[in-house]
């Protein structure tokens, strides 16, 4: 039973009723309704509680401007959407919606106790509490967390799909109202590529809220004219019309982001799984037309926040767009002529207008006569001083204004169930402001409107301060012509139109930022921000406490900082601040408008980049083998690498111990394909290497390899790796897996910008080569079987050398290098043969019980040998000497970072140096990152003075004990001494400082 639904009218589909629930109660509406219009049709006004005081909140607006009518949509904990505006949620069969920020229920809410203590929750309450003594915060934090809040975030993984799309266009028109339609038609007819975006489901904007019997365009009703425009635009191949699409961000160089709702409004059964839920459009437009309309302002008076108090234009929208009466007995409260039209429209639809209260001393004669003819009592030069009604407004108390910021005369008490308010209109200049255009105060509006543009855009219609339909149509056409012309379609003429409309006085608003109530300032509760519960007196308090800038006052009071971005707040707040500061509106200015214009889902912003597509994932040619052999993968840079291979019955830890043991006792093989590889050629390649590596490279002979360290100019280690000399002018460089791109960029930068005289060519060949690193006592036997007619014995093939060979006919490069300290060979083959090589190695190693080992065993094996991993044992503050590696800084020539190695700070004796640590108790494995201290007892001093930290720590199966690497202040001097490793909730662990090569000092493989 939709008690407040009119028998006819509205743009809803009465043949398709819809059933939905709000807080468990079932209601009926029609297809085309929003949650707000359907609830209003059922007489439900109170739908929410406010953020701070938990005051009852109703429906103020009819679109994205509505401040506080926020609901939770969807019962499924994984899919539920919090903080959705009831004025924007389209209903469908089975839709479940809930009130939020209240407990146990909307009508009986414990949190409303905040409202009883409101005197003690003034502006800046949170700020003062948080900035005060810590005990305040400790006491209030749990209370505040529970009491203040909005909806519940979904719990699980987002089940929906999102997409994003890039587009170029000649003309982007933001806003599909009368101005936007004229602009789009004009530009489209010129042949320009046009995109028209409209935030709501229907084109037409304010036309949808007009009485269809009173206005005609081109001889058609407003709705018919909109339909004709839509049909024409749909036929043009150069036009894209996007409804349910909000232009939410205007960025540099006419880059505009749009968020499109594709399926939120459909019942789950009607959704197309092949289509995304929402889509992000990233548009680069040559020219932009901003036709984003205007927002009606509420009036700031005592008791202005009850459910049933609504913008006059919203009441008119519910009437004509949705066929819903927002009430039966309405008071219309205004400071301009526009709301008189709303009053007459409501009266015509059968709403009893029990009063028009106008704050202006002398409303227009013509309007007074029309009101009299309809029997509407008028209270000129008056204000509402109070309202009553717990969950819905029941009465309004009216008194005369005395012209001196006060009230006088008798109070008139008027019974009503709706107060339609209008404080004038503010152009929606958010996008204009985001484009870095400058707003100007227009005293005629009064309000801020677009001034000089910064980017290639222009505003048209209500967004530009034009409040008459005729002006909107004309400005829209002119803006479309200008945009098309400037985007290269010269000579475009504005589209023509004819308009018939009854004569109405122009809107003639006055500045009424707040209204007196005759009450003391401290007992007045006049709300400026209905979502964040900011009252006029909070702004005054902010000024008194010294927050003189509008930006500071906004933050101190949280004015306009809710999810509505303060669309109905701004000018009233700026006006109150201007009054309080005794400054002009232009002087006070506006706060910065920021993207997004309204809340956008993270899903839409993430687009396709979720789950497996979150980031590019690179796999090696051997990946399938790893996968089918129990590999546990870990991301390393963009690569997925096998971390360990678990066999049946093995845990991660036991598999790791087996792999690391076998690699030292028999033979192991590592997929090292991910190592960065750079092919370096050119007559100056050798000189180039000598400049980028800290050690010497001029004498490296063809067929030989060398380990090198790369530094940044600050002298700190940046990357390391082995580079082989293939020929006098040809080298094969390897980098760390994660550093490959960084190193290539770094080398390119120096070649292009510093050493342009060097003839060197760099090519990334990381993905061209697949690499199997075979190591262990039986490695030579395996390599002999893998390679064709090749003698890998150390006597024939010395350490740090390189040979070309074939392996089963596959061309191969074999390097005798080692990252484990064992006899090792790295066989490189063209990537497409990677799996074939791998399987050949596994077959050849079978009789030695070869094991594939992953990155975890690789880390362990290299730590046993004291080899570093850049980025784990170094952190950008470690110079070559800090690693205690001799011979890594040549003196024979300059290299990147050289001069920094003799800086006073780099040669400090107490720099952190890399050392080994052996715990007193060999079974204790230190925690990586743990702090190292000098005392056996945890010091009381905070922060505790630390000597350094543990960088790598493992349980070594080959040494049968724990080992760790650490950066310790003056570590080289501490060899043999005891240090202490801090831990939480227990005494520090005793450890001895040792050299980093554990294999050498701990002795025989056990």
């Amino acid at each position, binding site marked *: 039973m939709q008690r407040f639904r009119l028998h006819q009218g509205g743009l809803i589909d009465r043949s398709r009723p819809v059933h939905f629930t709000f807080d468990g109660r079932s209601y009926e509406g029609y297809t085309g309704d929003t949650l707000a219009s359907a609830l209003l049709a059922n007489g439900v006004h109170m739908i929410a509680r406010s953020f701070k005081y938990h005051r009852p909140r109703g429906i103020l607006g009819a679109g994205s401007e509505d401040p506080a009518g926020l609901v939770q949509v969807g019962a499924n904990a994984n899919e539920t959407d919090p903080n959705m505006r009831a004025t924007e949620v389209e209903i469908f069969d089975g839709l479940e919606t809930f009130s939020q920020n209240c407990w146990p229920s909307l009508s009986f809410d414990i949190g409303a106790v905040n409202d009883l203590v409101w005197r003690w929750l003034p502006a800046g309450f949170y700020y003062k509490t948080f900035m005060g003594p810590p005990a305040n915060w400790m006491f209030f934090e749990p209370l505040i967390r529970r009491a203040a809040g909005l909806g519940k975030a979904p719990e699980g993984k987002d089940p929906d799909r999102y997409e994003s799309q890039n587009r170029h266009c000649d003309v982007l028109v933001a806003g599909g109202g009368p101005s936007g339609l004229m602009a789009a038609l004009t530009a489209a007819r010129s042949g320009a590529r046009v995109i028209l975006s409209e935030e709501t489901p229907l084109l037409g904007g304010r036309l949808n809220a007009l009485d269809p019997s009173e206005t005609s365009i081109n001889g058609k009703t407003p709705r018919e004219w909109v339909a004709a425009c839509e049909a024409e635009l749909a036929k043009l191949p150069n036009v894209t019309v996007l409804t349910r699409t909000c232009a939410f961000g205007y960025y*540099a*160089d006419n880059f505009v982001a749009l968020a499109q709702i594709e399926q939120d409004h459909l019942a789950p059964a009607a959704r197309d799984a092949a289509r995304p839920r929402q889509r992000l459009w990233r548009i680069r437009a040559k020219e932009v037309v901003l036709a984003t309309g205007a927002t009606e302002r509420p009036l700031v008076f005592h008791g202005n926040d009850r459910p049933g108090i609504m913008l006059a234009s919203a009441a008119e929208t519910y009437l004509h767009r949705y066929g819903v009466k927002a009430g039966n007995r309405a008071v219309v409260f205004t400071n301009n002529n526009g709301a008189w039209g709303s009053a007459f429209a409501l009266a015509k639809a059968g709403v009893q207008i029990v009063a028009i209260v106008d704050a202006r001393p002398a409303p227009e004669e013509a309007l007074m006569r029309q009101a009299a003819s309809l029997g509407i009592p008028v209270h000129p030069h008056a204000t509402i001083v109070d309202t009553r009604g717990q969950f819905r407004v029941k009465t309004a108390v009216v008194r005369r204004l005395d012209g001196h910021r006060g009230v006088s005369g008798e109070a008139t008490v008027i019974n009503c169930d709706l107060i339609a308010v209008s404080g004038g209109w503010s152009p929606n200049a958010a996008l204009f402001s985001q484009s870095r255009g400058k707003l100007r105060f227009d005293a005629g509006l009064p309000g801020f409107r677009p001034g000089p543009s*910064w980017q290639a855009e222009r505003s048209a219609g209500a967004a530009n301060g034009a409040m008459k339909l005729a002006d909107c149509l004309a400005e829209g056409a002119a803006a479309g012509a200008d945009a098309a012309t400037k985007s290269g379609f010269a000579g475009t003429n504005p589209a023509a139109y004819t308009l018939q409309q009854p004569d109405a006085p122009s809107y003639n608003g006055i500045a009424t930022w707040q209204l007196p109530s005759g009450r003391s300032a401290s007992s007045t509760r006049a709300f400026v921000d209905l979502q964040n519960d900011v009252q006029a007196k909070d702004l005054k308090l902010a000024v008194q406490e010294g927050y003189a800038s*509008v930006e500071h006052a906004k933050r101190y009071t949280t004015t306009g900082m809710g999810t509505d971005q303060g669309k109905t707040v701004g000018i009233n707040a700026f006006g109150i601040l201007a009054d309080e500061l005794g400054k002009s509106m232009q002087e006070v*200015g506006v706060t910065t408008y920021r993207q997004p214009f309204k809340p956008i889902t993270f899903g839409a912003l993430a687009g396709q980049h979720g789950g497996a597509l979150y980031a590019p994932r690179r796999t090696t040619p051997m990946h399938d083998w790893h996968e089918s052999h129990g590999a546990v993968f870990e991301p390393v840079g963009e690569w997925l690498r096998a971390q360990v291979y678990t066999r049946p019955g093995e845990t991660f830890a036991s598999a790791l111990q087996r792999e690391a043991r076998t690699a030292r006792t028999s033979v192991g093989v590592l997929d090292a394909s991910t190592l960065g590889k750079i092919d370096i050629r050119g007559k100056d390649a050798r000189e180039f290497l000598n400049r980028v590596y800290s050690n010497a490279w001029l004498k490296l002979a063809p067929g030989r390899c060398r380990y090198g360290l790369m530094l940044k100019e*600050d002298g700190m280690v940046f990357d390391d790796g082995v580079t082989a000399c293939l020929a006098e002018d040809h080298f094969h460089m390897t980098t760390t897996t994660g550093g490959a791109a960084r190193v290539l960029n770094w080398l390119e930068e120096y070649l292009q910008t510093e050493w*342009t005289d060097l003839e060197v060519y760099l090519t990334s060949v990381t993905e061209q080569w697949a690499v199997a690193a075979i190591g262990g006592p039986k490695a030579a036997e395996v390599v002999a079987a893998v390679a064709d007619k090749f003698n890998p014995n150390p006597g024939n093939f010395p350490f740090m050398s390189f040979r070309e060979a074939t392996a089963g006919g596959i061309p191969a490069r074999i390097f005798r290098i080692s990252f484990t300290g064992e006899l090792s060979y790295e066989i490189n083959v063209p990537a497409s043969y990677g799996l074939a090589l791998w399987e050949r190695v596994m077959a050849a190693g079978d009789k030695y019980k070869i094991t594939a080992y992953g990155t975890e065993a690789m880390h362990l094996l290299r730590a046993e040998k004291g080899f570093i991993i850049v980025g784990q044992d170094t952190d950008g503050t470690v110079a070559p000497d800090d690693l205690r590696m001799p011979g890594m800084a040549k003196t024979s020539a*300059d290299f990147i970072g050289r*001069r920094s190695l003799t800086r006073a700070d780099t040669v400090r004796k107490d720099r952190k140096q890399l050392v080994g640590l052996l715990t007193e108790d060999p079974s204790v494995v230190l925690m990586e990152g743990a702090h190292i201290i000098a005392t056996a007892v945890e010091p009381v001093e905070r922060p505790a003075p630390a000597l350094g930290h543990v960088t790598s720590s493992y349980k070594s199966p080959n040494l049968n004990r724990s080992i760790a690497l650490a950066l310790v202040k003056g570590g080289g001097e501490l060899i043999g001494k005891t240090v202490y490793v801090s831990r939480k909730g227990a005494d520090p662990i005793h450890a001895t400082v040792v050299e980093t090569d554990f294999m050498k000092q701990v002795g025989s493989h056990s």
Partner: protein
Amino acid sequence: MLLITCPHCGTRDQSEFTYGGEAHISRPANSETMTDAQWAEFVFMRNNPKGVWAERWMHASGCRKWFNAVRDTSTDRFLAVYKIGEPRPNVTAAGLATPSGEPVIGSGNDAAKVMR
């Protein structure tokens, strides 16, 4: 997202480029004779003006070439782009000094400016 003109390829989205900081800083050839302070000046210190300056960009997702640009940091307008090795063109900011038309020193917000 800015539009940036690569002198080799033409105008592309900012997402194709990486930034390289201040331009026209040469690596000293005589570092061994420099004081710590002089060397630190080269390694660590860069200008950060509000206004016109020269900076380096690299067309990472394109031709991968480094180039220089003159940009007005108060407006984000590119005033010139030129190849490595070419001298800095003599250009100055044209038109409004900043989007809001205020002097190049100070906040972009009118209110903050008036209130100060």
